[in-house]
């Protein structure tokens, strides 16, 4: 056989092994976290762990309810803030804006996505927390606290702007130009075209974008940890402090080495994040891939 062909085959099988190994990594991460959380799962039922809000590591009681609620509050606030703004911004960029303006806005959004989480956190501490403490919270509650789930939600909302916008722009560009032209030629205004053609046509894509943004928000750690207050309680209002799941891991992971049960509990939290984000991502990426293939 020709030496060049042998080289080609050899390189091929090496690369195949590398590819398989890297895909296997995803499974390995999930399995590793599951394996480590087994000791905890053997002693408690999953339902008890998720629904109890008693967190006393020293007594071996691990209830994740408060942390799960903290995560849900922060994520919910972030989506409520980010989605309308991003939807309007994406419509503006893709339908209304002059190409020259688009060339300014899109790179700025890209740059925003490159800012490290810890810088968002510092911004949150310097700007968002005082803003809430001095101006927003005093209007609603008696003892205003800047470090709250609202602060976390605002910081997180700004953090997921770039992700949502880039996904939405991709979804909008999948709507054929002919459809818009048909609508406009029937005498519809630009806004009517957006409302009845663009948004209706891209509804599945918008839902998928939201799911992806939610899963990104779920896992964000440092920025949220810095502004949420880290008090173990189920938040009752947006001005209460919270303690999201990733923050729990980040805050305690270094010191848990002495207690195997504690480690198991924290890795169960990581496993929980892994499973939720894995499912969300896999499903929405498959749907997004379908949408893309339709146009091609």
């Amino acid at each position, binding site marked *: 056989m020709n030496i060049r062909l042998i080289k080609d085959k050899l390189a091929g099988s090496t690369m195949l092994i590398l590819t398989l190994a*890297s895909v296997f990594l995803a499974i390995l991460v999930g399995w590793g976290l599951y394996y480590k959380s087994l000791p905890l799962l053997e002693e408690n039922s999953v339902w008890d762990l998720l629904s109890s809000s008693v967190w006393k590591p020293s007594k071996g009681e691990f209830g994740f309810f408060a942390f799960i609620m903290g995560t849900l509050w922060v994520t919910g606030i972030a989506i409520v803030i980010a989605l309308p703004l991003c939807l309007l911004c994406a419509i503006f960029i893709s339908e209304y804006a002059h190409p020259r303006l688009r060339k300014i806005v899109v790179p700025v*959004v890209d740059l925003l996505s490159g800012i490290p989480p810890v810088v968002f956190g510092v911004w949150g501490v310097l700007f968002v927390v005082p803003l809430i403490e001095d101006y927003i919270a005093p209007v609603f509650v008696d003892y205003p606290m800047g470090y709250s789930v609202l602060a976390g939600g605002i910081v997180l909302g700004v953090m997921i702007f770039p992700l949502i916008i880039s996904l939405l722009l991709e979804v909008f560009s999948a709507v054929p130009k002919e459809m818009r032209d048909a609508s406009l030629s029937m005498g519809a205004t630009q806004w009517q075209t957006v409302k009845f053609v663009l948004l209706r046509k891209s509804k599945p894509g918008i839902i998928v974008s939201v799911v992806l943004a939610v899963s990104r928000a779920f896992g964000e750690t440092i920025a949220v940890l810095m502004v949420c207050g880290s008090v173990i309680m189920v938040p009752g209002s947006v001005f209460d402090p919270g303690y999201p799941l990733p923050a729990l891991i980040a805050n305690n992971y270094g010191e848990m080495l002495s207690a195997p049960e504690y480690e198991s509990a924290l890795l169960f939290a990581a496993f929980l994040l892994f499973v939720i984000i894995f499912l969300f*991502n896999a499903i929405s990426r498959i749907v997004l891939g379908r949408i893309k293939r339709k146009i091609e």
Partner: protein
Amino acid sequence: MVFATVIIVGSFFLIVGTIVSKGFPALSWEMLSEIPSGDFYMGGEGGILNSILGSLYIAAGSSLLALIISVPIVIYINMYLKKSSWMGNLTRLGYDVLFGMPSIVYGAFGFTLMIYLGMRASLLGGIVTVTLLIIPIMVRTMDEVIRTVPKELFDASYSLGATRLETSRVVLKQVAPGILTAVLLAFGRGIGDVASVMFTAGFSNDIPKSLEDPASTLPLAVFNQLSSPVEEVQSRAYAAALVLTIVVLLISISARVLSKRLSKNKI
């Protein structure tokens, strides 16, 4: 709509503005060129050179490692597999999912793995964990670039009798700017991430001398200093955040400019 766009674009400038206005007064040459002294976190002398270098080591090491791993993967799924191959699609899906994984999951997994292997928090541990984190970014970015290569280029190479391996060299030359962008993006992500290196790289006041030494990173320095009760130390955190922001912005801007400039000569 204009209002929404203004808010979003404005939030970027608001963040950068806040960091600059708070960080700039605390920034000094001493901060950039010295390692921290013993009571640095109580307001003592010193700088954050250890964190700056630690971050650079980790980001550079992991970018290099991730590049070596990702290029063959991207070549394999694009050149060796058919377009509709289920394996290629599964791999792409896998990387999309890994791309969405939060860095804290990588951090926790990496740390567990290190304990299992009997390793201590070290520069090497940090590099490996960050490599895991940025491989998905590289693979996804490069995959997108390679897909834009015209089919005719492949055909021309094949028709001259080149094997798939030889053709991939032609293709790699064609997408070199895209690969550079991917590396810079991954580098930027690697230098800014904290949750993944928090436990795996450890923390140290010295500049790491070998792969086994623990290394401090810039984001971790920001995080640690900010939680200090001393006001002077807090203002140093702002300055460190400013340094980090400048580095990351420079990298992402140059990634975009370079990819535009280099792709001018493309077919």
